[in-house]
């Protein structure tokens, strides 16, 4: 299949003709076919790629076998490529109790990615870990919350790639031009009026859960989000929750996100959300197990920023937590937190900076945890199904107050 309707450049044509080997040819065929299916005109070079399908928990044996064969074929990535969180913090695997068989499989997966030339940075927040796209760049990112952040907050352009299609984009250096790479799909579909004061990132997550359920794969346009406007971490929480409860990959906030001013939301279907709606989300997703005592607290879904860790370190200085607290983040931010003296007070209080993984893709159901306290709308959506957890969903300050009492 070298005949295609797509306009390919010489380099792309060479990959399709098999000049870089059979495996690269197969992945190029995949991109061309997906492009044809979605009506793309051409394949766009990508500035960076983020691959999902990294944890052994999601890949399983078939995914591990695929990655090992691909990486042993001599194929190498043709674009800057990083990874979604894996299932293990390799530095603290024994200390935190990750199962040994799982750790061994995860190490083989990471070795295969390394052979492919992928950066070992395993985070859902590459944009807070030294891999920051600029406005207008075309990407092939796969983790749903980073896709929403890249499109909405940074103004970069990426579809919600699947694990295999992102890997193909990495190896071939390009992605089909359709969907959110084009202006049309970035237009708002719903107007959202928020009539509640949002007091925490958890509130932004609860709002995201509510909106995502109503707009599905649409593009919400928020009229305003508080007087001062949300910070990067609040937008991160909002987008992550909308991508988890729905399939939102793009949104606008008037006066805040860079493409909002291009659009007029007048006449779009309108949603109104107040405190009662947010309280309903908390009650529904985070009632706990009745006993009210989570056996693990987790923050950092999506991965915590240096700003969030600095605040938490200050809050916990000189105190002692009654239950384990995982602060999930990138290895990049954890290293910075250590060098800057932020890790010490947090860990002395009983918290653990956990890097390269998160509760959703780690095998926490095999590690003795049954009820998890989270401040993340996204985690509250996923933990019951993917990790068989009961969930307590509350703002972080409320979880901490209870654990410090």
């Amino acid at each position, binding site marked *: *299949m070298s005949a295609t309707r797509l306009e390919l450049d010489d380099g792309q044509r060479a990959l399709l003709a098999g000049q870089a080997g059979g495996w690269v040819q*197969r992945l190029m*065929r*995949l991109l061309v*076919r*997906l492009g044809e*299916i979605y009506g793309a005109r051409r394949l766009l070079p990508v500035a960076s790629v983020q691959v*999902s*399908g990294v944890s052994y928990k*999601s*890949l*399983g*044996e*078939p*995914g591990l*076998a*695929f990655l090992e064969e691909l990486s042993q074929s001599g194929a190498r990535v043709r674009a800057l490529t990083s990874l979604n969180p894996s299932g293990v913090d390799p530095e603290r695997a024994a200390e935190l109790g990750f199962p040994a068989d799982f750790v061994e499989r995860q190490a083989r997966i990471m070795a295969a990615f390394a052979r492919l030339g992928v950066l070992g940075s395993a985070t859902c927040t590459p944009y807070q870990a030294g891999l920051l796209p600029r406005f207008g760049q075309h990407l092939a990112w*796969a983790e749903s919350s980073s896709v929403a952040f890249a499109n909405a907050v940074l103004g970069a352009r990426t579809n919600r*790639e*699947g*694990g*295999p*299609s992102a890997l193909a984009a990495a190896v071939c250096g390009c992605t089909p031009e359709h969907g959110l790479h084009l202006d049309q799909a970035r237009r708002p579909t719903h107007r959202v009026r928020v009539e509640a004061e949002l007091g925490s990132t958890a509130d932004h997550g609860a709002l995201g859960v509510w909106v995502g359920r109503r707009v599905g794969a649409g593009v919400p346009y928020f009229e305003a989000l508080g007087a001062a406007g949300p910070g990067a971490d609040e937008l991160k929480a909002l987008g992550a929750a909308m991508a988890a409860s729905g399939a939102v990959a793009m949104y606008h906030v008037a006066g805040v996100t860079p493409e909002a001013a291009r659009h007029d939301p007048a006449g779009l279907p309108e949603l109104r959300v107040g405190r009662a709606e947010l309280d309903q989300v908390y009650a529904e997703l985070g009632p706990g197990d009745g006993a009210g005592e989570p056996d693990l607290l987790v923050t950092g879904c999506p991965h915590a920023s240096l700003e969030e860790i600095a605040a938490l370190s200050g809050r916990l200085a000189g105190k002692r937590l009654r239950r384990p607290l995982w602060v999930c983040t990138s290895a990049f931010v954890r290293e910075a937190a250590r060098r800057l003296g932020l890790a010490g007070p947090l860990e002395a209080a009983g918290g653990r900076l956990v890097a390269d993984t998160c509760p959703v893709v780690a095998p926490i159901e095999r590690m003795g945890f049954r009820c998890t306290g989270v401040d993340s709308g996204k985690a509250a959506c996923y933990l019951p199904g993917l990790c068989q957890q009961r969930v307590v969903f509350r703002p972080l300050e409320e979880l901490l107050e209870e654990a410090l009492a």
Partner: protein
Amino acid sequence: MKARPISSGRAAGPALVSPAPISFYGGVEATTGVVIERGHPLCGRCVAGQVLVFPAGKGSTVGSYVLYGLARNGVAPAALVVGEAETIVATGAILADIPCVDRVALDGFRDGEALEVDADRGEVRRA
């Protein structure tokens, strides 16, 4: 019957017809080809060597790797005839070299009838 080609190749086999979408991730065992999703109409049936007829894929995108795993373990379907091949199924079929077509009306197919799929020409025939 005319269909849209998704993944090239030609194959024949008995039809295994699912009225419900299939999640390959968590829904089909890669080592045996047996459908393991509880409550699924095909639960307990084996896809190996069958022309698998189903409306669409569902679930995680790593389901594509399960199709690849089925092929690697010699228990892949002979061909896929899909109502609408979204990315999970299209990607898996191409990675695994399983002939696949879509945009076919699925009403007329009966379990066990002999089918021929020509995914190069975009055709499904009763043998």
